[in-house]
């Protein structure tokens, strides 16, 4: 019981935190609701800014997790709080068919799963790390963008999956897209869907994906429709520069207002080119929506069970956003990663390591 920790959420944040904790001699159980660890990063192909393979980052994290008890297929549904620590209840939320059998897991190289939750189970530990991450904004909610209605409108996450498959990216009619549009700020910075915040990484993702499309089809025209371009970290602005200089990606300052489908499946966009002050109409073959972050679906419930504060944006608030950003304000409950808001992988890893350090200290000293 002494050095037991439960990490909820097996994305890059939860993986890193649990690995670091195990390294310091803690007994760590990682509960992940999906069949595999990795979280969103497992869905990405190559990462900004250097186009490193996402799988390499995950492999690195898994390296450190040899001594972690990883339980997948275990969605946390209940947490109770007592003087010895916490009891976490998980149930299987995945429909049985979508949880792969043990064979497939073993075959899946690098997998470290020790257990597949088979029903409701309880786990007890002295401290908790919350690393439930985020959900992608449901792009269907922006109905005027036509996701789920027009076949050639996809999201950035869909595009990553296409990249990952290694196949050619074609329109739904099977043609090579000659003109591709990227729409920034889908579901972020938008009062009309109730999200006022910026999702931070979608700008650079849009730039990265624009480049990747040009790599694949050098003769294609690529346009990014943006309100502001937020190249907040090292090498990002250079990536933007590269997109223009090397790849000729066009950036149009105007938010997509609405779009419609032509009979041939191409998409007509309606926006304003605010720099010329003229309405702009454009037909594209493929439209990519840069969907933003929203709090993970279970966050509200879990935060409620523990009495954690959430901001108006729905993400969990830490005890202090500067100096105590890994503490929840509740002794023994630590916060890490994208459940506190949009974040990049490098930030997530740094955050997770800091969390592990503070947590180890807490278990040793008994103080938060």
């Amino acid at each position, binding site marked *: 019981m002494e050095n037991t920790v439960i990490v909820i959420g097996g994305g890059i944040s939860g993986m890193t935190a649990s690995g670091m904790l195990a390294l310091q001699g803690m007994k760590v159980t990682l509960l992940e609701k999906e069949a595999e660890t990795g979280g969103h990063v497992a869905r990405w192909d190559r990462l900004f800014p250097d186009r490193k393979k996402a799988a390499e980052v995950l492999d690195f994290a898994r390296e450190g997790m040899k001594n972690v008890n990883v339980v997948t297929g275990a969605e946390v549904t209940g947490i109770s709080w007592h003087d010895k620590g916490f009891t976490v209840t998980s149930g299987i939320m995945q429909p049985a068919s979508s949880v792969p059998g043990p064979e497939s897991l073993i075959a899946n190289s690098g997998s470290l799963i020790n257990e597949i939750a088979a029903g409701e189970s309880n786990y007890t530990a002295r401290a908790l790390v919350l690393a439930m991450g985020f*959900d992608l904004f449901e792009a269907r909610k922006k*109905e*005027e963008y036509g996701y*789920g*209605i027009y076949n050639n409108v996809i999201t950035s996450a869909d595009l990553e999956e296409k990249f990952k498959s290694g196949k050619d990216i074609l329109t739904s009619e099977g043609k090579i897209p000659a003109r591709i549009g990227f729409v920034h700020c889908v579901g972020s910075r938008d009062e009309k869907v*109730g999200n006022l915040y910026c999702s931070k990484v979608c700008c650079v993702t849009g730039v990265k994906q624009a480049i990747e499309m040009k790599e694949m089809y050098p003769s294609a025209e690529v346009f990014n429709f943006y309100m502001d371009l937020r190249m907040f970290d090292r090498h990002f602005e250079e990536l933007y520069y590269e997109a223009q200089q090397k790849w000729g990606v066009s950036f149009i300052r105007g938010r997509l207002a*609405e779009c419609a489908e032509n009979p041939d499946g191409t998409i007509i966009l309606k926006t304003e080119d605010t720099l010329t002050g003229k309405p702009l109409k454009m037909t594209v073959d493929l439209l990519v929506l840069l969907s933003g972050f929203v709090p993970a679906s279970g966050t509200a419930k879990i935060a409620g069970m523990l009495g954690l504060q959430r901001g*108006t944006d*729905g993400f969990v608030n830490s005890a202090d956003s500067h100096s105590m950003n890994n503490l929840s304000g509740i002794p023994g409950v630590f916060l890490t990663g994208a459940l506190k808001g949009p974040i990049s992988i490098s930030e997530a890893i740094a955050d997770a390591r800091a969390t592990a350090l503070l947590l180890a200290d807490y278990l040793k000293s008994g103080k938060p």
Partner: protein
Amino acid sequence: MIKFNLFVLPFSFGLVFIVYSIVIHYYRWIKALPAVDKVKLASGVRNPSKVLASLKEIFLEGLLHRSLWKRNPLLGYMHMSFALGWFLLIVVGNLESRIYHGSHINAPYYPIFLKFFIHDRLVLFFEIFTVPAFFRFIMDFILLFVLSGLVLAFIKRKKSKWFGMTKTTNHSLYDRITLSCLWLIFPMRLLAESYTAGYFGGGGGFLTQNLGKLLVAITPGSSEMIAYFFWWSYSLVLGLFFILMPNSRYMHIPSEMLLIVFRHCGIQPKKWGSSFSSLEAHSCSRCGVCIDACQLNFAAGITNIQAVYFIRGLREQCVPENIALTCMVCGRCQEACPVGIKVDSLRLIKRREIGSGQVSDFSYLKNGHPGFADVVYFAGCMSHLTPSIPIAMEGIFKEAGVNYLFLDRSGSICCGRPLMLAGKDKQANELIEFNKILIRQTRAKLLVTSCPICYKVFREEYNLPIRIQHHSQYLLELVKDGRIALQSQHRRVVYHDPCDLGRGGNIYEAPRELLGKISDLVPAVKECADALCCGGSLGLLNTPVKKKDELTKNALEYLLKDRPDILVTACPLCKKTFSKHSGTEVRDIAEMVHDAIPGRLIRKTLAAKEPARLLAD
């Protein structure tokens, strides 16, 4: 026999004043009526059945307060005891006074102060079953009836919930003074009559006689002067009440009577206002029923704009602009108003005053021929931001083999109602004329629209020689005619009545019948005429987003109480507005119908795990 005392003067003066004032008001209202309405009135008052109907309604509404009874019996009783009780006091008092006075023409004050004038006419023990004794009994009883209303009125101040009201009117100082006078009238009468009866040893009924004895017994130094004091006070509060009344809320009593006559003669409010509207404004009793009905009050905490305050402003000739503009024109208060005041039209008249000074220029609209078809489809501006709706409609038209024309496929010329809601009718008419030409050119026999806002204005302002349907009516017709076959998806759905389709267009059944065929419809907590606005109202002009959000969340709370799978509406604006805050999928009825055509799907429905966090907040 004495027939006069100086204390009758305040009352008499007040009476002359109020009668004069009412006559002048009546005269002005009738004189200022537009010529057409004057003709209606003249023929109406010659028609015995209309006169009878008016009298009946005056009796039922003005005295019995039937609509308030329906709302809440306690509230109805309270108002009835005042109105009917006072009325009976006057009528029965008049009859009673005739026993003592041979002549048929009494001075008007005589019945009012009768008990003073007859204080020397004792009813002796053996006269107990005589006519005078009967009247004394019945008059005391009526007085008690009125006083019971007074007690309730006091209770209502503290316990308005018992009367079915959450919020009561915040009255002006003037109204409060008038109200105090009114409330004092009956206790004063009780004291005056009782003390007199007690002091002179007889003349009262079961109540006044006994109370009088008690009063005299407990008052040290009882004297005639005390009786006079009470009679003076009674007369003064009566007189004062009459003098204050024309400018107070109580002017609603004579106003409503005339209003009922006007209505029975078929007089309607006019777009730019007429004396009918001024009469309506005077007929508001400031009962405050409209406050509870208003969503801005109970969902968004906006409490100063409701019909009662707006109308008070109209009467005082100072409606602050923000009060005129902060209103959804949703018709909920109109539906609840016991006087039946057309509040929406009053509000729009005011907005027209505000908006009339502004100009528009639509000369850029160029005529062109849209083509011919049997059915012309007008999606409406907002539907362009909810493409699923027009896509569904086109799919259905094709499935049913309809020869249709999508008039505003590449952008709508606005129907004009949004301009009208801001009081810019003249400007709206330019758009209306333009659209009318386009619609007529198609030679279609039927106009179908997806937008209830357009639907309302098409029907009320366009004067088109063709049928006009909202798509919920049209789709039901297609199903009934067997032109499309549907298969129920058996999803649990709840239906939201858009304001302009329900209260505004009186279409409640068609969408429900249609949904009944393709899904498992569950009732909403507030529906049909009681339905709430989604919060996106185009009538609401100057309200910040935060307040609108509160409206939306409140409406959703009621709609989603039974945890339906889908929230169905029939308006692009409702759909967009709800989508912002709803954790449950929101769809238009046209999409539902489209997807119920076997083998057709507009799009995959949303995953069930979609975050419901905004609602949970």
